[in-house]
């Protein structure tokens, strides 16, 4: 399949010029389909493995199109370790982190995007710099500190730690959305008799709402997907959803088919959430970079 599609791709590529008639377009389309197949294959293979009988998954001649459809792997995934406990914990941690992040981040984003004040630049640089510190570099002191404050293996401890990466990101992204809202709108409202707060609540806030939703969802996904802190700061019986996926690997090997079923359950809701906000997010993440 792939070998036949790759061959005709070479001919139009030599021409190099876009939009050269139907043949050129067809060549680009073939290349594009190749990209689609390669990029999409891992996702397809996860679904493919998840829905076929576990013994077919270890067939030396794997089937590309599942013949028998089964939910057995999902049943096994629920059995291997408690599923809903970790999911509930992940949900709780991610939601609380996002709510705190959005409220606190919103105020800070307003300050750095709508006010001129001494030290503003330092604050911006600080918030950016903090985002640069890799999580792994922080795990040692964070682990020791939570230990000392009796927050090891506590959901509150995990929430506090997750703020380290969700909050700076929220501030920076919201700032990107705010600077894209023309200041003149606020000023017009103030001329018409609104107070500064009133102008914000009535004019800016409604325009900002989609950006805030996108930022919340993205922050939620980040918190949900976090692995290292969840692994290090929570014990086995208090694990979160990402760590739960490790239960399929024991010293006897990995149960791949149920693991792919578990992976599907974890990934599909997140990918759908992501699909809803990605357009807005891509704009938000880069808004700050190309526009002040």
């Amino acid at each position, binding site marked *: 399949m792939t070998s036949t599609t790759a061959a005709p791709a070479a001919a139009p590529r030599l021409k190099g010029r876009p939009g050269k008639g139907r043949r050129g377009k067809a060549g680009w389309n073939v290349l594009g389909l190749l*990209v689609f197949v390669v990029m999409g294959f*891992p*996702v397809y293979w996860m679904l493919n493995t998840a829905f076929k009988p576990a013994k077919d998954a270890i067939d030396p001649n794997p089937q590309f199109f599942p013949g028998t459809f089964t939910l057995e792997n999902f049943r096994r995934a629920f059995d291997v370790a408690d599923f809903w406990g970790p999911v509930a914990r992940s949900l709780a941690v991610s939601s609380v982190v996002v709510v705190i992040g959005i409220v606190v981040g919103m105020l800070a984003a307003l300050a750095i995007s709508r006010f*001129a004040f001494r030290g503003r630049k330092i604050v911006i640089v600080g918030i950016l710099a903090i985002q640069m510190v890799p999580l792994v570099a922080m795990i040692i002191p*964070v682990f020791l500190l939570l230990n000392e404050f009796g927050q090891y293996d506590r959901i509150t401890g995990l929430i506090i730690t997750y703020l380290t990466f969700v909050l700076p990101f929220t501030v920076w992204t919201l700032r990107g959305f705010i*600077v894209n809202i023309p200041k003149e709108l606020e000023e017009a409202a103030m001329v018409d008799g609104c107070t500064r707060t009133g102008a914000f609540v009535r004019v800016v806030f409604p325009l900002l709402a989609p950006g805030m939703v996108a930022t919340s969802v993205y922050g939620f996904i980040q918190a949900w997907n976090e692995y290292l802190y969840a692994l290090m700061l929570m014990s086995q019986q208090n694990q979160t959803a990402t760590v739960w996926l490790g239960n399929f690997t024991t010293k006897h090997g990995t149960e791949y088919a149920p693991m*792919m079923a578990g992976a599907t359950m974890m990934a599909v809701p997140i990918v759908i959430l992501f699909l809803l906000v990605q357009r807005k997010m*891509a704009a938000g993440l880069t808004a700050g970079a190309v526009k002040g």
Partner: protein
Amino acid sequence: MSAAETTTAKVPPTRPSPTPRTGPEVPGKPARKPSAGGAAVPWVLLAPCLLVLVLVMGYPLVRLVTLSFQSFGKSELWGFKEAEWVGLKNFTAVLGDGEFWAVVVRTIVFTVGAVTLTMVLGMVIALLMQRVSGWVKALISIALVASWGMPIIVATAIFKWIFDTDYGVLNWLLSKLPGVDMGGHNWFASGPQGLAVIMLLVVWGAVPFVVITLSAGLTQVPKEMEEAARLDGAGAWGVFRWVTLPILKPLLVMLTTLSVIWDMGVFPQVFVMRGGNPEAEFQLLTTYSYQKAFVVNDYSGGSAIALVTVLLLLGVVAVYMRQMLKIGEVE
């Protein structure tokens, strides 16, 4: 031609304002001055954020620095002993260790490889998406968003499965090629090959963000300018080199720095791929610091390595910061 290049390089592409739904259309001024408010107001707004950041970030960071100048092991962790100041001992030990330098070199090679692959593939796919039919574009977008949104841990599990020695689909596929027998090939038997697989995994997850961002940037490239360059005799490469690239430059700088930061921070991919215990050949700075701290129980040694990693990153970040500060000035 050259005049066009110099002007475009300086003017950042303007982005269509997503907002003009309610109020009247307001022409966006490029240089908007923040309004002068009461001096205290911004600080009041910032206070909660700064407070949280100092508590959750500042304090551990300070602790990271102090730890790296102390001796802190298991007995200190359990409180049997007070941490002792040892000056630069941790750093001399780390920097004098040949293994550490091997890890540094491996990390740099890994990062440069992953970032280069990500950026080149991202650029190529973004350009390709401009040339394909609508339905192909939609298909590629779906694949991109699916891999972008995929939790890293799930992606790692999938790659581990695809590259599995006995039942992995890749070995089977490769063996279909004439003259190739990859049945039972262990991709993780050697460090370089295993890290190449991990690099692919990282790139697979990182390309979508680059493609989507660059695609947005490409829509800002004025068609007239491309036309003009073509009339002046520029080929496809010339148009890309002299028109597209200068306009995308700010975006490319940002994406590259972000990629460097993210790829140097790669941890779960290696950690999970190697079953929570990466072999010496697989150690990157992140896993190395982790192992020093939590496997060997030398928390201060691990901190010293983490600190060196952060300092290394700072060099890269300085470039990014300059770019970001320029934006601050434009405001």
